[in-house]
């Protein structure tokens, strides 16, 4: 498929290309995770296909089903100069490795007074919409963004998938890269080899004047999907892809909201205590008196992800719900 259109590749291929190029450019980049080597078909969705054949099975290593051991091995190797990219197949499985991530990867630089640090990348996929039910599609970005020492990134395009992963691998600190599963097979321009997208920089995807919609990961595409309905309602929305959740780009968001006076934060995670709360809290503080309406948030309904298709659809933050929330915000 990737060659059906010239210079078009899938998001999945962009991640693979980033790993390929990073391993080629830097012999200290390592990849580990469940099923990721070629004898295991290069991962359950094939993102790491070809890596072990090209770089050898010491640098690209399939692991047992043992997330604590996976992150522990990544941490240890990173302490002495390697740059491991560890795959935790699904975000719900990061729960098994929380001690290694939160108590160790995120803290060793600080607790050692800067003697050591953990330049690891943790790649994990998630996202509702595949009928996988309650334990396979949660978004926990808010947990990790609340953890000093961690960085958290999400891509919604082929170029950001490539550029953010390259920057995450370059970064001297632990970076959690949250990949949305349902959009792996969407296509976009093939990234320029070596291209980097700086961490901490948001992107204004569509400029607008009436309100700002800040989102990330798949929800950016849903926000874009809301544009037509909003346009028909005569609403000009500025769409911002946050791209990095920790540290997030306050400058770009504040500049936009100062201009529009209205902000809707949209993400796939449930709303209460979610990442949207931090953005709302900062914006209401920094732009106090300058807002035309309260900062509003939209996210998945506050429950585990249901299996039943109609319920799953009702649960997800989709274009229609975003359009509705944005219109409601305009009336405030």
């Amino acid at each position, binding site marked *: 498929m990737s060659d059906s259109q010239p210079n078009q590749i899938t998001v999945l291929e962009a991640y693979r290309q980033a790993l390929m190029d990073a391993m080629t450019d830097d012999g200290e980049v390592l990849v580990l995770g469940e099923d990721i080597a070629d004898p295991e078909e290069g991962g359950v969705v094939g993102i790491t296909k070809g890596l072990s054949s090209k770089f050898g099975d010491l640098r690209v290593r399939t692991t047992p089903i043992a997330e604590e051991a996976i992150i522990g091995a990544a941490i240890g190797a990173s302490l002495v100069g390697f740059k491991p990219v560890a795959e935790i197949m699904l975000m719900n499985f990061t729960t098994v490795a929380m001690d290694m991530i939160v108590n160790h990867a995120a803290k060793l630089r600080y607790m050692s007074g800067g003697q050591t640090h953990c330049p690891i990348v943790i790649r994990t996929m998630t996202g509702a919409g595949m009928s996988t039910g309650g334990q396979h599609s949660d978004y926990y970005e808010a947990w990790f963004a609340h953890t000093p020492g961690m960085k958290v990134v999400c891509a919604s395009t082929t170029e950001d998938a490539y550029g953010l992963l390259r920057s995450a691998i370059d970064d001297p600190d632990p970076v959690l890269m949250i990949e949305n599963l349902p959009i792996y097979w969407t296509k976009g321009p093939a990234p320029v080899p070596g291209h980097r997208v700086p961490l901490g920089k948001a992107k204004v995807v569509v400029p607008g004047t009436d309100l700002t919609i800040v989102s990330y990961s798949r929800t950016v595409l849903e926000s874009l999907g809301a544009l037509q309905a909003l346009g028909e309602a005569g609403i000009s929305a500025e769409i911002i892809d946050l791209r990095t959740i920790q540290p997030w780009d306050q400058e770009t968001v504040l500049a936009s909201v100062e201009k529009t006076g209205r902000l809707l934060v949209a993400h796939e995670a449930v709303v209460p205590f979610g990442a949207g709360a931090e953005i709302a809290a900062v914006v209401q503080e920094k732009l106090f008196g300058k807002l035309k309406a309260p900062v509003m948030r939209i996210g998945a309904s506050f429950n585990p992800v249901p*299996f039943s298709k109609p319920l799953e659809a009702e649960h997800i933050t989709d274009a229609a719900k975003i359009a509705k929330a944005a219109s409601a915000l305009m009336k405030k």
Partner: protein
Amino acid sequence: MIPNSPDGATQLEIFKKMALLKGNDERSRKVISTGRLVMPYYSYRGQEVIPSALAVNLRDTDYLCTIYRGIHDMLAKGLPLRDLWAEVAGRVHGTCKGKGGPMHLTDVAHGVMVTTGIVGASMPIANGLAWASQLRKDGRVAVATFGDGASNIGAFHEALNLASVWKLPTIFLCQNNRYGEHTKYATATGAAKISDRAIAYGIKGIHVDGNDPIAMYNAAREAVEHARAGNGPVLIEAMTFRFHGHVFGDASKYIPKEEMAEAIANDPYPRFRTKLIDDCIATEAELAAIEADVETRLDDAVDYALASPFPGLEEVNTDVYGAAA
């Protein structure tokens, strides 16, 4: 091991369950491939003997904690076909009102307490159910099923050790189908045999051919009697194989052709079927009737499921919290 084999009636019971399980798996894959249902489906075809030979040793009141690849375990334990199908179809008449789906079935009436999609998680929870039996002295046992790959995760270790020091009536049933997703046993597992890991907990360990109904029956019986008698937990490693890959759609390219061919040639279902006839436990006609009956019940269950309504949208955020006391 108890050498003698179960009586004919029991063997026929085991076969009946195997026929139900096999028929249900074939129907499931058919219904998915024809697009009538969309669900993540983890075929257990080839593993039917294990839960069938176990279940005839269990009571309805015994507890089961199983996994995403666990519909065979649940059906053998007594989960009704209609409830199963309505659930995997995401309908309101499903055991979980369609909210759980194929990876999260629960059917308290038949002791199916938890179905988890998290590798290893069936084990620590089964201990809690076994603790409840110990407290109530009601003689129930709790069975946790899991795979070979799951024996490498921390939860396995913590659960077996706790069961040992608490002397819990937990049966840890490892269905070793030689692969964890796309990864071979030896690539992931340091132990020569998973049953050897019982030594690490000072508990009883049993290694058995999980495709041999007689051997599996005896192993299960020994384990259940041991646990029920209050002698503590048991780890069973039952050797088997899965014929249709990890999840529906997986072409199993990581499995050598010969290995797959040899496994299918040793399909335990026809082998046991022939044995029952050879041993004059049942006639070809009787077995064919059992299989025909399974198909009839499956027709009914699938029709029932597809005719059953979806849950109302208001169900999306109910059952999150109960009513505070």
